């Protein structure tokens, strides 16, 4: 089995068998998730996306159990994979998690929020999403916090496409009581969310063009009440994003080569966590990236990746002050060569990133660059053990080189049981991930030392033949030199850096029980708990912005062919946000979430058409993730998907 595992996951073996590159990635990951398992991963599959009724990429974050998610408007999200303080409680230059689509890294961070609706992929094109907690070296790239890795699905040969439209509405309108003293504010619709793409897949090439659109009203009183009425009347009453995308791929030179491009635009109020307030923004994200692999012969393959992107924030007319106008350009590249030695393999490569910032009415364009070599070795030790060692020497701007490394050992204890142990140490690299830009724009001086994250984790997987698997993971992380944010950042009133960088130890447990394979009944239950130790008092209050417990359980049944009913339970602990306290409530409190969702899906027209009726928050309990954010009542969605 160990030989088979290594044989399957050997990139050389796969490429020489003529498989396309992103299927190589899927296969590598899939095989590694089977047995042995990778530590600290959560996988969201297509079936999870469908039964949860997610039609925006940011909604998929709901499936990342333990990644403390927060959003003011339900549109742009921040998330903390490792229980470190949320955006706004952490300083603007602190590292963020990264997003990778089919091996291409796509910048998404804007002031600690991730503009996932502007990604060059729609939900309809996604096969699976893998959430990996950091610190980790992901295909050579250091990711201090974690990785959201998205894999696209492949459509059938010939003309193909997909189209989905979803409409939603929130309950709680005043109805006929609007004329009485029982009147309440009107509650707006949710959506529409729509996406579609058409393409052609030939024997060795394919091309695809699509667009995804999403809109959400922001008239919830928890948002509008923070503005003077006349001011709020002058701002756009919804957030709208439109993102056209294009993809092309060709199989050549013993590998696959892919081009991905998009230009997304998001309009509306944008909450800037370090400022603890909104500005009215038109955000544009333009991305063009290529990646591929080729067979260099002699059991060697070469992979490459390169991308250019620009994220522009300009003013959308409104009475609000506008201070964060800028364009951040990113140019990044990576290349590596992998040589196999039997079942073992050695990868050597290098990466480089460059960021340039244009700020209106400011002379000069600040820029940064960084990069360095990386190496990876996959080594089987006998039949039961395999080692995966990664290291990267990163030169971050003018700083001297910092060594990031991870080592993962996988043990196959028997045919149904496996164990993985991972140790990793990764530094934050603000010049490589561009996080210095947020600090620069918000007048926050960069801390003298960037944070360092060290983690040890172990994952134990036991399969209870033949349908159920259980995973238990334990994790300890040591964080040093983390900076909080005591006062809101403002360019007109520069805030000092946090002169007391924090350190802490975070211990977490993660457990998952899930069914395997296709059955009438399917489901999973996943739980995450974290505790913090050895931290100073200010850091303890900032860490309280993350819920300590998170549970997600889902079950679905197909009582008859082409008809599925699902129920999903989300339980999450409450959180306290010291920095977002108000005169009425300090610290601000976000109540625990107890949400029950249910959906019904019916496929028709030989599974070309799928209709879904979805209810969220059936118990109508408080459902919000941010102290300044909207609270979502019981709501319903209807969606129709056409697959051809």
């Amino acid at each position: 089995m160990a030989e088979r595992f290594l044989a399957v996951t050997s990139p050389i073996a796969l490429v020489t068998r003529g498989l396309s590159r992103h299927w190589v990635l899927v296969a590598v990951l899939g095989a590694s998730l089977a047995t042995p398992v990778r530590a600290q991963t959560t996988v969201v599959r297509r079936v999870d996306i469908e039964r949860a009724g997610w039609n925006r990429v940011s909604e998929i974050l709901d499936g990342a159990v333990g990644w403390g998610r927060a959003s003011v408007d339900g549109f742009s999200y921040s998330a903390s994979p490792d229980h470190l303080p949320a955006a706004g409680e952490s300083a603007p230059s602190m590292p963020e998690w990264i997003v990778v689509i089919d091996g291409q890294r796509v910048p998404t961070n804007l002031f600690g929020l991730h503009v996932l609706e502007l990604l060059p992929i729609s939900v309809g094109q996604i096969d699976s999403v893998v959430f990996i907690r950091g610190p980790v070296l992901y295909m050579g790239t250091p990711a201090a916090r974690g990785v959201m890795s998205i894999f696209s699905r492949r459509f059938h040969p010939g003309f193909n496409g997909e189209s989905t439209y979803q409409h939603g509405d929130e309950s709680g309108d005043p109805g006929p009581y609007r004329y009485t003293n029982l009147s309440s504010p009107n509650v707006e619709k949710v959506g529409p969310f729509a996406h579609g793409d058409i393409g052609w897949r030939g024997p060795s090439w394919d091309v695809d063009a699509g667009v995804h659109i999403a809109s959400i009203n922001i008239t919830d009183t928890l948002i509008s009440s923070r503005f003077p009425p006349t001011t709020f009347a002058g701002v756009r009453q919804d957030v709208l994003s439109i993102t056209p995308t294009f993809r092309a791929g060709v199989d050549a030179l013993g590998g696959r080569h892919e081009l991905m491009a998009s230009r997304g635009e998001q309009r509306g109020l944008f909450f800037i966590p370090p400022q603890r307030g909104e500005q009215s923004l038109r955000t544009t994200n333009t991305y063009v990236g290529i990646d591929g692999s080729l067979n260099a012969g002699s059991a060697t393959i070469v992979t490459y990746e390169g991308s250019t992107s620009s994220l522009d924030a300009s003013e959308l007319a409104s009475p609000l002050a506008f201070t964060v106008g800028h364009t951040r350009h990113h140019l990044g590249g990576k290349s590596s060569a992998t040589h196999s030695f039997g079942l073992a393999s050695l990868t050597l490569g290098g990466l480089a990133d460059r960021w340039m910032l244009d700020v209106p009415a400011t002379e000069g364009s600040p820029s940064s660059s960084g990069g360095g070599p990386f190496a990876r070795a996959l080594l089987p030790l006998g039949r039961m053990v395999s080692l995966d060692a990664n290291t990267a020497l990163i030169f971050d701007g003018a700083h001297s080189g910092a060594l990031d490394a991870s080592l993962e050992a996988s043990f196959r204890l028997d045919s149904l049981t496996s164990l993985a142990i991972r140790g990793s140490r990764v530094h934050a690299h603000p010049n490589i991930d561009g996080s210095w830009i947020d600090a620069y724009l918000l007048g926050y001086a960069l801390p003298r030392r960037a944070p360092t994250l060290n983690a040890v984790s172990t994952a134990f997987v036991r399969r209870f033949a033949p349908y159920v698997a259980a995973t238990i993971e334990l994790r300890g992380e040591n964080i040093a030199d983390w900076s909080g944010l005591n006062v809101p950042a403002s360019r007109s009133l520069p805030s000092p850096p946090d002169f007391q960088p924090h350190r802490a130890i975070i211990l977490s447990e993660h457990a998952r029980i899930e069914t395997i394979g296709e059955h009438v009944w399917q489901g999973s239950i996943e739980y995450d708990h974290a505790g913090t130790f050895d931290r100073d008092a200010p850091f303890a209050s900032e860490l309280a912005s993350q819920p300590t417990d998170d549970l997600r359980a889902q079950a679905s049944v197909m009582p008859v062919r082409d008809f599925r009913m699902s129920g999903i339970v989300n339980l999450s602990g409450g959180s306290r946000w010291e920095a977002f306290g108000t005169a009425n409530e300090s610290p601000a409190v976000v109540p625990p979430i107890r949400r029950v969702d249910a959906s019904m899906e019916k496929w028709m027209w030989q599974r070309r058409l799928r209709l879904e009726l979805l209810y969220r928050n059936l118990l109508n309990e408080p459902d919000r993730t941010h102290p300044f954010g909207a609270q979502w009542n019981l709501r319903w969605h209807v969606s129709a998907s056409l697959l051809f």
Partner: protein
Amino acid sequence: MAGEVAIAAAARRRKRSEDNKLGQRSTSSPLAGFVHDARAVNLRTSWLISVAAVALVGPVTEPVLAQTATSPPAFSRLTIRAGALWQTTDSRLADLYKPSTGYSGEVSMPFDVGEFALAVERATFTGQEPSPHPDFHGTVGMLKWRMPLPSVGPFTLALGAHTGAMQFSFQDTVIAPGLRKEMELLFGVNAAGSVRLPANFSAFVMGEYTHVHLHVPVHLAPLSAGIGYTLTTPGWLKDFLR
């Protein structure tokens, strides 16, 4: 742990505060006697409807298999019904509005388990004296699922649950046009009795209990009666639905 307790306590305080606000509004109102805790009503009704649905669905999930040999195959026939509609509302709404006689229409089809129906109902709600509020048209669109009980001669009884939305169209020319329509989620249970008539016709009586999830919930109990006509589902429609 202490933090969790504090957070939970704060959440309880917040909920009590919200409840109190609603209570304060209600005590100052002439409708005080009718006002209940909206959240509690929502929860209770959701649970009741869920329990009813589970009770109905539970015995049949095992296979469809349990269907009797006389059950028509899925999508094999189409029944179109139209009738008159009378409804009563909860007493809180009844003090403000009186529903007039309306009409209802439904298209139903057998499924692997029970039958599904798409239904529309519409009635005008008239503001009541002494200070009538603007009238509104209440239009309800529903997806229904029913489980027919064994037929007794020409008589059939089916029980089920439904969900959908109710649109309130206010006949109010003063407010902004964008505020003259509201749509709200509803859940409910229903029962339908029918008797076969010659030439594929049937007569039906249908009763429902519906909870509309407004901020102050509304409960409707419509009763409709009329004529139905059953035909074989066209082949193209059958293929489409499979």
